């Protein structure tokens, strides 16, 4: 009797451990669990729309990182992003835009790649280093802008999320103006 009980309990434990492993490896994506090394960059937007923490960051549709959190800094949305350390050759003049997957899907940040090591005069990025925030930007203006995204880099070259109400409003406003001109 005791031997039978032991065998049954062992059987039960094995099934339980198998289902925990199943939940860990088949149901939960293990790559989100194993912490790949990432580096942190920041971006300042005018409007983040429906972006949330843990929204994906994509280049050409491929997820390369996730948003860590979104706060306000100087009353502008300040997005902290963790990018996979494998992708460390993103040119620093790349621009970020907020896009929507599908018509009703969730929003994500799309990076459109810039040109690496272009002449620095043409860069849209004005003050590149995070430590320049507290000081007068003109002091830091001549500081060297890194060629690629790196830890602590602040991206200013961003375009705001499209808010559909604003678009409709602009459309109605402009079509109203056109009618006035005709009359």
């Amino acid at each position, binding site marked *: 009797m005791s031997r039978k009980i032991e065998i049954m309990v062992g059987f039960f434990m094995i099934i339980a451990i198998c289902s925990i492993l199943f939940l*860990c490896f088949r*149901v939960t994506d293990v790559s989100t669990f194993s912490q790949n090394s990432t580096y942190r960059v920041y971006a300042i937007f005018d409007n983040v729309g429906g972006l949330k923490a843990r929204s994906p960051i994509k280049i050409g549709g491929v997820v390369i990182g996730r948003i860590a959190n979104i706060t306000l800094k100087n009353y502008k949305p300040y997005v902290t992003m963790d990018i996979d350390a494998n992708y460390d050759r993103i040119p620093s003049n790349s621009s970020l835009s907020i896009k929507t997957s599908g018509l009703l899907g969730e929003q994500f940040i799309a990076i459109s790649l810039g040109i690496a090591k272009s002449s620095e005069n043409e860069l849209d990025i004005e003050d590149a280093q995070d430590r320049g925030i507290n000081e007068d930007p003109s002091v830091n203006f001549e500081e060297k802008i890194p060629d690629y995204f790196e830890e602590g880099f602040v991206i200013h070259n961003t375009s705001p999320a499209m808010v559909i109400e604003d678009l409709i409003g602009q459309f109605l406003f402009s079509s109203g103006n056109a009618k006035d001109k005709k009359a």
Partner: protein
Amino acid sequence: MLNILARIGQSGINFIALFGQAGIMLFGALVGKPEFKKQFPLWVKQFYFVGVQSLTIIVVSGLFIGMVLALQGYFILTTFSAEASLGMLVALALLRELGPVVAGLLFAGRAGSALTAEIGLMKATEQLSSMEMMAVDPLRRIIAPRFWAGFFCLPFLTAIFIAVGILGGALVGVDWKGIDSGFFWSSIQNNVDWWHDTVNCFIKSFAFSIAATWIALFNGYNSLPTSEGISKATTSTVVYSSLVILGLDFILTSLMFS
């Protein structure tokens, strides 16, 4: 008038004293010199009674709940032609709410009532007091192994329940309704978060296992030593542990997902 007031006060004091007794019982059972070697055979036996014997009902109901969830979800999602995300629906519903709660309710009905009846009968036949006469602490000998067995078995049973439920959902969605199995599994993997969903599921499950086992053991230990007392204690075990599980679930969900 004064009598009514006195009776209300009496029942209030009794109610608070009940909590005190329950706390003292658990404290007496769990705090003390660990005796793993001596207690190990008792643990294995309780794992058998509490865990293995609940396995059938957990597996069967998990299978059917997963299958019916997939079927209903399929009917609704096809109206939006979004049936590719059926896997996500089944997995998240099971992991976040249905798994811990339904497994907890079944556990309270299957194992909790059995624990209460067993301990109540031991009390009615004065086995507990005769143990005390033999200088064996009934709290350590009877209550503690049952508590630990319940504490560890419910999360295990929950894991089995969810795994079987998701497999049942896959059975209906992929094999019957013909959703592509790649879509089904990738929508699960992309949307289930390790911390947010899986770990929270087990936190919930451990909270329910403590509540359900504690209520069952205390109701048995505190029952009137008559046949009516045992039946009353068994009923109140099922009622109270179901209510506590549902209430705790609301509190934990509002803490975790806000």
